[in-house]
């Protein structure tokens, strides 16, 4: 019988065995995503809007309200509270019931919680109203007053290639989260699947018919396939709801960034998936598995934290540049750096080469540990002991 046939059979069994947990976890995750996004839509959030509360005393002109609204749009809204006296209004400002006050058409009052953006907008709106009043008093028409307020000034922005677009930042953040989720969740599935087979000794029956490397490969491939499907389903759902409710703009990011994310995803998953399989083979029960798999998860977590800090902080430090070349963290850091336009060509080439070499080495190393681990039906094995046993069996 061909090796490919046995691998496919083992993949089929794994897919069947994980069908129920996969469906349940997918249903839970999809429900949470759908519920979360629906809640954001219903509460008006989720699109980055902030609502400022403005207190009005002595009936400020409607133009001030209109100007504040225009100046703060589109990502902020205002709500207006009217007060009968300045004393009452200032009390509300101190109590933070409102964020700022407009008194009549020529006075503004800031409070302890007034945001700079609001202060700028309110000051400008009241100033505009003063310009309009002065313009009218010297006989200028409203149109001429408007030209004074909004003179024709041509403006444009030169994008810095180093900073990158918001869309790139979104993609970079997604890549970090995606890698973390995939490696941690599905890596652990692999680890525990290996432990289960070893604990109930079924692996001894299997190894009579299938080579240990192939058994490990079947596990990594099948659980990886389930993981990818789940992530794709979550992404598709989130995107569908976002598009349907106008809450998402499809990033105009280049296809190359997406391609890089996919490439790093596969490299990272193969690297860590093999490592989790090897780790699982050292344990003889789930309790022991926790003590082996736990430290691996910390390793993944370090990459995740570094990735998020880097992407959200917008700073490409030397530490990040170096760690993004190291295989343990490259899958979580390098796609983000590529997406942000920070990674030099040579850095990408080096990281990729190192990752491929390390990935192949990890698969071979993990395969050997796995062989030694599953063959020894004793309690918890050390990495070195499992490797020696594996090397012994393969020699």
């Amino acid at each position, binding site marked *: *019988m061909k090796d490919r046939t046995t691998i496919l059979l083992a993949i089929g069994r794994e897919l069947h065995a994980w069908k129920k947990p996969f469906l349940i976890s997918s249903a839970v995750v999809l429900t949470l995503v759908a519920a979360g996004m629906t809640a954001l839509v219903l509460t008006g959030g989720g699109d980055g809007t902030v609502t400022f509360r403005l207190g009005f005393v002595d009936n400020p002109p409607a133009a001030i309200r209109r100007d504040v609204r225009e100046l703060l749009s589109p990502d902020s809204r205002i709500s207006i509270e009217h007060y009968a006296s300045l004393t009452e209004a200032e009390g509300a400002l101190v109590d933070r019931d409102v964020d700022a006050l407009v008194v009549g058409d020529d006075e503004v009052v800031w409070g302890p919680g007034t945001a700079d953006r609001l202060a700028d907008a309110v000051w400008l709106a009241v100033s505009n109203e003063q310009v309009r009043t002065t313009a009218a008093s010297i006989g200028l028409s409203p149109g001429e007053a408007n030209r004074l307020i909004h003179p024709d000034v041509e403006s444009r922005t030169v994008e810095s290639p180093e900073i990158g677009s918001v869309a790139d930042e979104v993609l970079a953040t997604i890549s970090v989260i995606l890698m973390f989720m995939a490696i941690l969740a599905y890596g652990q599935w692999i680890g525990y699947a290996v432990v289960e087979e070893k604990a*109930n*000794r079924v692996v001894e029956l299997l190894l009579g*018919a299938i080579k240990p490397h192939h058994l490990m490969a079947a596990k990594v491939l099948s659980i990886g396939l389930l993981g990818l499907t789940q992530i794709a389903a979550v992404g598709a759902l989130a995107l569908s709801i976002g598009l349907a409710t106008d809450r998402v703009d499809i990033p105009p990011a280049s296809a190359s960034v997406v391609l890089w994310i996919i490439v790093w995803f596969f490299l990272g998953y193969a690297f860590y998936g093999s490592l989790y399989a090897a780790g699982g083979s050292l344990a003889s029960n789930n309790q022991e598995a926790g003590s082996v798999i736990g430290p691996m998860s910390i390793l993944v977590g370090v990459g995740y934290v570094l990735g998020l800090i880097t992407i959200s902080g917008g700073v490409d430090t030397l530490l990040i540049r170096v760690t993004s070349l190291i295989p343990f963290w490259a899958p979580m850091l390098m796609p983000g750096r590529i997406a942000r336009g920070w990674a030099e060509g040579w850095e990408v080439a080096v990281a990729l080469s190192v990752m491929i070499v390390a990935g192949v080495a990890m698969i071979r190393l993990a395969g050997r540990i796995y062989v030694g681990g599953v*063959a020894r039906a004793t309690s918890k094995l050390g990495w070195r002991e499992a490797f020696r046993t594996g090397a012994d*069996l393969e020699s």
Partner: protein
Amino acid sequence: MLCLDGLRKRFGDVIALEECSLTVAPGQMLGFLGPNGAGKTTAMRTIFGLVRPDAGRVSWHDREVTTAVRRRIGYMPEERGLYPKMRVRRQLVYFGRLHGLDRSQAEQAVDHWLDVFDLADRSGAKVVELSHGNQQRVQLAASLVHDPMILVLDEPFAGLDPIAAVTMARILREQAERGVAVLFSSHQLDLVEDLCDDVAIINEGRVILAGRVAELRSASPSRYLEVATRHPVDLSWVDQIPGAELVEQRPDRVRLLIEDEIDLEAMAGAAARAGSISSFSLEPPSLSEVFTAAVKR
């Protein structure tokens, strides 16, 4: 012929196998006996490559045991190996296919063995839902489903009720008659004596005794004399026989370990004077007694 030749294996300071050798021919059923920790399981695991011996060789018909040969071996591990949450039929079909059968062959074979083991009505159950005995049957079915040339069974009778044990024994005998080389370990020596023509006894990693059961028994220098009387009698006559050791005693029956040169007529006379004899028999030791003597030696 399955041949384990001069196997040696150490795990750290522990010697698991030391010059361990045995053979099992097609159609032969070999009982593999030994106290706990003697090396039975380690020896069996070398056949599958789960343990690589430090020295020695495992061969089938004088050739290395390759993956192709391993796929023709039926194996039953000591602590049982099945997916607890997988349904019986699906699991057996999976094992059949993994060992080289196509889907229809595997399904046909599974149906056959489910019928043989009277498990057809539980084919849709998960293994974990079955009784211990039924799990044992599924385990044996898993080792048989791909029509193996060699059966290696580690304690197949452990935990079986007498009826299930009879069924298991019958199936093993049928497999041997079909030409399958059967190697199984067991602590139930009476059962092994009934079932096997040949045994190998291992102790401290070394096969210390091997051969046909009848020959091993008769080759023993010891003999057992069993004397039964019609009524309970005073057994003080036994003490008067020099060279006889009382090994079992009931009011109307005694079993003595005697030396070859003992005067049987004098002994019969002493027994007759004590009471009316209903039977007087001289036997070679049972397999259990041969085993105990060999391990203690």
